[in-house]
């Protein structure tokens, strides 16, 4: 009886798995076919293989247009506005990134080089190293301020809109249904908000927690929604916003600023003139105060790097497994098919792990911010 039930369930799972592998294998085969029909008409004489490193970095880093997919040699992407301010006289320039034609054309005196906007006259130069070999210098042209709406900025707008829409509608529902049982999205958000209030804010900050609740709730949901959206592979997801170190830097700076401004005298005494430490560690050479001041800056720095590294590393690993399919597919299509089963299984497992990591990282960032606030406001015991 049990065996029959198990066997029935197993065969339908097997069917689904076979169909999934077939569909994926077909798409992989189509992608591999293109590598044989290109290049006799392009400028380069060598056959361009699959560049896993370039693909991974293109997915993880920011870009001036949102690249959706490649059909053969033709890239399908959403063009985004480019806004640059040239400090050397010409002022503001507004145009769409489609003018750059994926880096192949110059427009208005500017061109796209190595994902940066430079003036048309800029050429890459090399420096001679000690051994006489040439090393390439990173693209750097001062004087151009780039305010473009890039992929990450669009993702930021989209996730901010989602968060705003979600919470404003829930707040309105609360006002409308005062005293009644929660309904709809309230049911989903209320346990999370209460969790942040009780287990994070109240436990860490104490009785003055209400002032910090808006900030803690904001960063928790901001980090969570952006982490989750980074895992969605199609537009408007997949932009890796929280894996951008500038974004995590800003979040960590917010925490740092709020910690510093909510610190009481006790906090500063513990940093500069901590009790219980022998005098010769504070004067004439303030060793302990130096260590403590370093600690003041390391804590937000660690917050920044932790979130950035977790999210970016997760994306890189998933993309790495996906590129394995293409790398093996170049050797032979059969190898590509074979690897694709393993690759997809691993990528699925890692994606589920990444969902867990999304929640954990949001929780850890919020918890540590609350702990820092609490430590800054501690009274003398």
């Amino acid at each position, binding site marked *: 009886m049990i065996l029959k039930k198990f066997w029935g369930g197993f065969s339908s799972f097997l069917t689904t798995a076979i169909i999934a592998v077939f569909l994926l294998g077909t798409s992989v085969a189509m992608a591999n076919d293109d590598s044989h029909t290109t290049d006799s008409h392009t400028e380069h004489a060598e056959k361009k293989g699959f560049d896993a490193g370039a693909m991974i970095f293109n997915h993880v880093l920011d870009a001036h247009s949102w690249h959706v997919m490649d059909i053969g040699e033709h890239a399908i992407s959403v063009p985004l506005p480019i806004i640059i301010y040239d400090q050397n006289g010409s002022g503001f320039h507004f145009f769409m990134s489609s003018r750059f034609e994926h880096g192949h054309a110059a427009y208005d005196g500017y061109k796209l080089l190595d994902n940066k906007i430079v003036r048309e006259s800029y050429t890459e130069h090399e420096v001679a*190293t*000690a051994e006489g070999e040439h090393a390439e210098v990173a693209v750097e042209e001062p004087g151009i301020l780039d305010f473009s709406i890039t992929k990450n900025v669009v993702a930021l707008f989209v996730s901010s809109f989602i968060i705003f829409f979600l919470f404003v509608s829930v707040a309105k529902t609360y006002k409308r249904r005062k005293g009644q049982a929660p309904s709809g999205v309230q049911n989903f958000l209320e346990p999370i908000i209460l969790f942040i209030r009780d287990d994070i804010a109240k436990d860490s900050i104490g009785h003055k927690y209400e002032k910090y609740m808006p900030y803690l709730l904001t960063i928790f949901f901001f980090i969570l929604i952006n982490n989750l959206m980074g895992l969605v592979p199609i537009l408007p997801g997949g932009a890796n916003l929280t894996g951008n170190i500038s974004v995590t830097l800003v979040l960590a700076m917010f925490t740092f600023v709020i910690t510093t401004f909510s610190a009481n005298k006790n906090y500063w005494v513990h940093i500069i003139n901590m009790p219980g430490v022998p005098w010769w560690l504070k004067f004439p050479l303030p060793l302990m105060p130096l260590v403590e001041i370093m600690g003041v800056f390391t804590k937000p720095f660690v917050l920044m*790097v932790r979130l950035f*590294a*977790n999210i970016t*590393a997760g994306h890189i690993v998933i993309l790495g497994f996906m590129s394995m399919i293409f790398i093996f597919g170049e050797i032979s299509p059969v190898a590509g098919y074979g690897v694709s089963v393993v690759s997809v299984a691993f990528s699925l497992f890692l994606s589920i792990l990444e969902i867990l990591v999304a929640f*954990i990282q949001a*929780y*850890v960032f919020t918890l540590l911010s609350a702990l820092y606030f609490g430590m800054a406001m501690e009274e003398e015991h």
Partner: protein
Amino acid sequence: MLLAILLNVGLAKLGAGVGAGLAAIGAGIGIGQIGGKAVEGIARQPEAAGDIRANMIVAAALVEGVAFFAIVISLLIVVL
């Protein structure tokens, strides 16, 4: 001669690989210890399983954060 060997880019990438491996070992040992002690604690007092699980996950995230520092540095060595 020694300077030439030391300035060789290949050696830097070897260092990056070894560093990433050591980071993985460190994370593995750390999180393994956390998991082991957590499971022991649950075995001693099953009613505290929820609390212990939450604390275990937080500690694991912090230890992984440290391992990721090493990964980021290794990636920087390879890329820069």
